[in-house]
């Protein structure tokens, strides 16, 4: 279910109202029905798969808790891992191994398989008692704000909140939702027009166009994905559930390590907890550390899609991160003096890696890189500016400025001018939403495809 779909935008206030009207002990029934309904509306064909993984991991966790020997526990864990990763492999990566099948990718499979697998591992490690109530567990898996594109929640954090009868609405959810819609409708979708035009024909792009499209894509994917996450966090807050933050101003990172602490935090944490640390983490020799880092980033690339350019994107990040660690270990004072310069260098490296992510193939990415250094003429600059357009550029600048000026949350007392800004921004987002619906140009969120 796309968050910009009318069913979600118009249905959410109704769900929130019903949720708080119902007796606390029955609220989970409403949330589960809505979650499954939203998922079925968006991808009915994938519904049995979601149910199968829910039942399979629910049973595996119960069997792990019942098993008396470590071997038996491990067997059930392996069964759950085979179920989750097997489904992910079949539906997402069958084409990569030349299976010749073109299966429809079920919405959110990369997210809910990781979330359920994380739950079973937590039960196996004894960090969590298994959830015996199938309804609460099904809600944990299918909770509608985060089912399709995360954040990938830890069972320890989410399950108790779903059971809590004393949960309270967090009104700052409305502010998160507004931020999300502004990011998606006013910024990401506006940037997408120029980015898509350049990346559709990389061989025809001039240097300025290739550079601008690459920088704009870095912002587009941030606005798109963090916009989705903001709406998810906001919608959950309005039904009394606090989801984890998925982004923390990633382009303010002063190093790549810092960037990965700020970008898609829930996925980074999942890989760290369930893959990186079991492999030995960073408390091992240099060679092992390099292998562990590369494994994590190559897997992260592969997680994003069954294509070589995603793996290369992960690999580039792995190599750059290792180079950063190496320079740190050698004691080189490689970092520029000012924080601004550190951030600029990190942003440039991240943008370079994004080229592999956005390009349709590795050869397209190479084409973009080669075009970056050609055609730096005044007419090319003029054409690039004309292609982007004055109004979209002004919209991007003003929209980004509004986001920067908006408070992070509404914990303080509202001021009259803040309320006025909230109303005007709501009108702007609503206008953009109606216009996109009317023109049929509403884009799905980028991470929905993963």
């Amino acid at each position, binding site marked *: 279910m796309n968050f910009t779909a009318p069913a979600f935008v118009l249905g959410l206030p109704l769900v929130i109202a019903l949720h708080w009207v119902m007796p606390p002990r029955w609220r989970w029934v409403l949330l589960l029905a809505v979650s499954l309904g939203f998922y079925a509306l968006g991808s009915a064909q994938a519904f049995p798969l979601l149910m199968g993984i829910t039942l399979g991991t629910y049973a595996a966790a119960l069997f792990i808790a019942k098993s008396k020997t470590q071997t038996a526990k491990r067997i059930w864990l392996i069964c759950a891992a085979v179920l989750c990763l097997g489904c992910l492999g079949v539906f997402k990566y069958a084409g990569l191994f030349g299976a010749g099948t073109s299966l429809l990718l079920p919405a959110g499979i990369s997210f809910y398989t990781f979330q359920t697998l994380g739950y079973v591992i937590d039960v196996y490690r004894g960090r969590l008692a298994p959830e015996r109530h199938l309804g609460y567990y099904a809600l944990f898996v299918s909770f509608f704000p985060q089912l399709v594109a995360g954040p990938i929640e830890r069972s320890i954090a989410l399950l108790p909140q779903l059971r809590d009868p004393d949960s309270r609405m967090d009104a700052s959810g409305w*502010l998160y939702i507004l931020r999300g819609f502004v990011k998606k409708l*006013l910024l990401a979708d506006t940037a997408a027009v120029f980015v898509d035009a350049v990346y559709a024909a990389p061989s025809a792009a001039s240097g300025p166009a290739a550079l601008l499209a690459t920088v704009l894509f870095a912002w587009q994917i941030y606005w798109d994905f963090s916009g989705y996450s903001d709406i998810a966090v906001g919608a959950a807050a309005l039904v009394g559930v606090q989801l984890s933050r998925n982004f923390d101003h990633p382009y303010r990172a002063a190093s790549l390590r810092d960037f990965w602490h700020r970008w898609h935090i829930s996925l980074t944490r999942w890989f760290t907890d369930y893959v990186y640390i079991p492999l030995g983490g960073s408390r091992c020799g240099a060679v092992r550390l390099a292998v562990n880092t590369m494994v994590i980033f190559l897997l992260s690339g592969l997680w994003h899609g069954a294509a070589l350019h995603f793996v290369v994107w992960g690999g580039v990040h792995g190599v750059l991160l290792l180079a950063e660690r190496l320079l740190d270990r050698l004691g080189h004072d490689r970092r520029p003096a000012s924080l601004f310069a550190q951030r600029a260098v990190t942003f440039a490296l991240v943008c370079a890696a994004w080229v592999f992510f956005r390009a349709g193939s590795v050869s397209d990415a190479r084409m973009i890189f080669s075009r970056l250094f050609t055609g730096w003429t005044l007419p090319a600059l003029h054409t690039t500016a004309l292609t982007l357009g004055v*109004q*979209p550029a*002004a*919209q991007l600048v*003003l*929209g980004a*400025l*509004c986001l*920067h*000026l*908006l*408070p992070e949350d*509404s914990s*303080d*007392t*509202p*001021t*009259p*001018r*803040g*309320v*006025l*800004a*909230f*109303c*005007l*921004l709501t*009108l*702007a987002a609503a*206008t*953009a939403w109606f*216009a996109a619906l009317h023109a049929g140009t509403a884009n799905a969120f980028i991470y929905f495809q993963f």
Partner: protein
Amino acid sequence: MIFVYLLTALTVLLALAAHRWPVAAALGMAAGAALLLAALVVGTPTRTLLLCLLVPCVAALWPKGGRP
């Protein structure tokens, strides 16, 4: 169209005035709603309307620290 721009200018002024006088914020909301209605009646292009709404929004939020 000139009416839409005049309403935009009025909303910007009210947004700036809202920093000092709370009543200006209420008037700004009314002006913003009137701006939207006028733009719909006149048939203002969507991008122009969005800019007309974003400019007073920035005026209301600037400098950083305004709390909705």
